[in-house]
């Protein structure tokens, strides 16, 4: 039972950064923009949040700093992709490389000492329930925030007029422009929001998940988040399920190492990447399913005809 609880809670925690980053990218892509720079934005968020904690700021301020760092990084991408009508693949890659450089540069002074991690909150009464308590009510606040974001984004995209406008822009920016919606401005907001979420994801990694600084500590989680959006065929609920699946993979791999399985640790570490490929293959084979929720104008630059 204890092992099950450990695996379950570990999964939920490992999935949290993926949920933040992938939900943010979902909003960006639903507006018709492809930002490949998640890895860079996450690293900037991770570095800034870590720095803020070591500089003595409180945890909420540090996490906020991480989120803002992600948003600032995404603004660089936004200017290129939206104002300068650049190839979005190239702009996203530039951001990924830039972010890894900037975070490594900032991180050179961090040393190798761990910081005090974000505390978990035992929700009074509920956390004392047998089984259910440890399973559901003893997480740190960011875990609950991720779930809250899932609810909020699902509601926004499919239950509000603003969400409808955003999706329309992702489908047909020309039509939306003709109706009178400010396509570029809305896309900027989506890109900034995506950066904010990637920054949160990075902050979670460096102040809660592994509260110490290692260069390139995201280890591809930004790219896995991108794969999750495809895996989820651009639907929020499947992002949540996919993130848990990958979180579970990560935890099984760690548990496998702890149990001393007779397999090289590198093979276990490769599992999440292998799983990403396999899952992508399974999903991509079904072209109809991919096309169903695919934002038709994804990665196509838009310039209002004046």
């Amino acid at each position, binding site marked *: 039972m204890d092992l099950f609880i450990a695996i379950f809670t570990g999964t939920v925690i490992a999935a949290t950064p993926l949920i933040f980053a992938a939900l943010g990218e979902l909003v960006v892509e639903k507006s018709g923009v492809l930002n490949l720079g998640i890895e860079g934005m996450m690293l900037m968020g991770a570095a800034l949040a870590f720095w803020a904690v070591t500089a003595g700021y409180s945890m909420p301020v540090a996490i906020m700093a991480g989120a803002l760092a992600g948003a600032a990084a995404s603004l660089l991408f936004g200017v290129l992709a939206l104002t300068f009508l650049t190839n979005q693949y190239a702009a996203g890659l*530039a951001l990924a490389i830039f972010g890894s450089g900037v975070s490594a540069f900032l991180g050179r002074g961090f040393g190798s000492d761990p910081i005090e991690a974000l505390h978990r909150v035992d929700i009074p009464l509920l956390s004392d329930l047998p089984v259910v308590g440890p399973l559901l009510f003893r997480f740190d606040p960011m875990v609950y925030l991720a779930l809250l974001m899932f609810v909020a984004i699902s509601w926004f995209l499919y239950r509000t007029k603003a969400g409808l406008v955003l999706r329309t822009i992702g489908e047909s920016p020309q039509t939306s422009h003709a109706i009178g919606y400010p396509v570029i401005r809305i896309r900027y907001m989506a890109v900034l929001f995506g950066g904010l979420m990637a920054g949160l994801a990075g902050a979670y990694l460096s102040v809660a998940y592994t509260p110490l600084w290692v260069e390139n500590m995201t280890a591809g989680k930004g790219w896995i988040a991108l794969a999750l959006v495809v895996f989820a065929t651009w639907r929020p609920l499947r992002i949540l399920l996919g993130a848990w699946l990958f979180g579970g993979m990560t935890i099984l791999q760690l548990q496998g190492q702890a149990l001393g399985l007779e397999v090289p640790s*590198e093979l276990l570490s490769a599992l999440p990447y292998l799983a990403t490929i396999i899952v992508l293959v399974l999903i991509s084979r079904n072209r109809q399913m991919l096309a169903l929720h695919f934002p038709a104008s994804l990665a196509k630059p838009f310039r209002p005809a004046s």
Partner: protein
Amino acid sequence: MHFRIEQRPEPSAPMRIAAPVLATALTVIVGSIFFASLGHDPLATLYAFFVEPLSSMNGLSEWLLKASPLILIACGLAVGFRANVWNIGAEGQFTMGAIAASGVGLFWPNPESVLLLPLMFVAGMGAGMAWAAIPAFLRARMNTNEILVTLMMTYIATLFLSYLVHGPWRDPAGFNYPQTAMLPTAALLQSFDPAYRLNSSIFITVIAVIAMWLFTDRSFLGYKMSVSGAAPLAARYAGFRESAAVWIGLLAGGAAAGIAGMAEAAGPLGQLSPQISPGYGFAAIIVAFIGRLNAFGIVLGGLLMSLLFLGGEGVQMTLGLPSALTRIFQGILLFFLLAADFFIFYRIRLVREKA
């Protein structure tokens, strides 16, 4: 009064040449501001970054030694990029090429055979192509996004390298360092001059540049690839299959990266270690863009990018600045280049509002 973006009736030829120059100049300016804000004399730092590496024979040798793999890989990648095939995993194909070539060098029964280097070349190229064939197959047959697959394959290749040098291939006499034994002499690309590290692999790069130019600018197949990138529908009407472009693009990138990996293991390093690549596979993507996916542009882009690597190492040693600066400059350079490209196709007009 407000600004209006107008499409130029024709792409501006002067801007096409000016854009990379402008981007480089802006990168240097941002770099100086950055150095100044860190409390270093910007002129002295820029000198250490961009001029000092080129002021000695050894520096020139190192410059070409680093430019060579960048140009080689970028040539291969650009073949794919022209057809909208996004191989982002050259780093992994480079790693696999280095692994396969080193494996041949370490374990071939006759370590003095003159065939050793050619065999390593074939092994490196083959491994790079094989590693790229997986995403090519998945994209051509299963419609799987090649960006994500090539990237995931890079992480797997890095872990595989780490497994080998920590495990079965670790040098027993290596003081527990995670690295293989040194390759036998017959498996090494000899330098032109014992004082410098530049070796004959530079000829491979020259051949690759010419081959790429012939393919993209002089061959019908290369032309069809470019058409399928610029106008996929038109290419389909003309009977050119998308899957052909996917295979050619990815295999070209994999072959080039694999050869570069072989040349790095058999050249300056002489063994396998976890740090086989200083990020050549990713930097080559930027080189391809700076070179506008054109063979000779890529040569200039590679020279510029290797100067950034070299300058980064230089200021790391002389001023104690971190090597991450190189990646920051690479990113900034690409940002500016992409932004400057805008002015090739568009101009900004100041428009007076009518009263």
